[in-house]
């Protein structure tokens, strides 16, 4: 009866995780070293969604869950900066290949999807309250 809330809630969690990944990508847009301090550009990550058959509604609706977090396979962005401490022998520094515009558009998409799920929860609450009007 209330599983429609669970479906919307799974959408909220999924979109927030996606937004987490995007903010991580943007925060590390100039990161040239990994977590142990070795020279290795940050690899952008993507959250992969999957339908969740554990969350179902009577109408056949299904929830969403995080399948896995994938790392981007694109090559790093080589920039000629000979004075940089992380430059290679030829003077090139490997920066993460992250396009700010793409990430922002993605972030907007995630936000809109989050809002849509909140909207569905509102509609579900409204329907439930209107059902109660039968008795009022």
């Amino acid at each position, binding site marked *: 009866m209330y599983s429609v*809330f669970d479906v919307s*809630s799974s959408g909220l*969690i999924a979109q927030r995780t996606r937004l987490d990944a995007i903010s991580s990508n943007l925060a590390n847009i100039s990161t040239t070293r990994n977590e142990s301090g070795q020279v290795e550009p940050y690899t952008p990550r993507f959250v992969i969604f999957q339908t969740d058959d554990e969350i179902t509604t009577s109408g056949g609706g299904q929830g969403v869950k995080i399948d896995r977090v994938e790392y981007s396979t694109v090559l790093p962005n080589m920039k000629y900066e000979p004075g940089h401490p992380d430059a290679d022998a030829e003077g090139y520094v490997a920066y993460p290949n992250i396009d700010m515009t793409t990430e922002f558009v993605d972030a907007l998409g995630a936000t809109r999807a989050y809002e849509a799920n909140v909207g569905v929860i509102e509609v579900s609450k409204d329907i439930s309250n209107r059902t109660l009007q039968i008795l*009022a």
Partner: protein
Amino acid sequence: MLSNMFDSSSLPALEQVVNFTQARHGVLAGNIANIDTPGYKSRDLSVEKFQTQLQEAVSAHRHAAELPSYANSDYYGAEPMDVAKEPWDKVRQVTDDILFHDEHNVSLEKQVTEITKNQTQHNVALTIMNAQFRLLRAAVTERV
């Protein structure tokens, strides 16, 4: 004796539901309050366990209601009433025993959704309760 008039409808069950949703709201509100508390594990009252217990109480109550016949002179005695009250007390006790930690971090969305579901359940139970009381009052005052 007069309290028997509330036992014939779904009022006792609804009363338990309202009690439970109120208690659960307190627990869930605590989770939201501790959303940033390090090491905090979210708590909850098990809806499934409550519903199972309520189901048992409803069946026991229905069974008890069938046993005493209206023709039986003992019907208004103390004993059948106690029998009818007992299952509901059991439901109330179980509310204290089903608190559990789900070993997960607090997820804001999940908690808010649970609160919303709980609130909806509470609203439904209260609305039906209200209708039952209005009906009883109409019967007592003989006014529509």
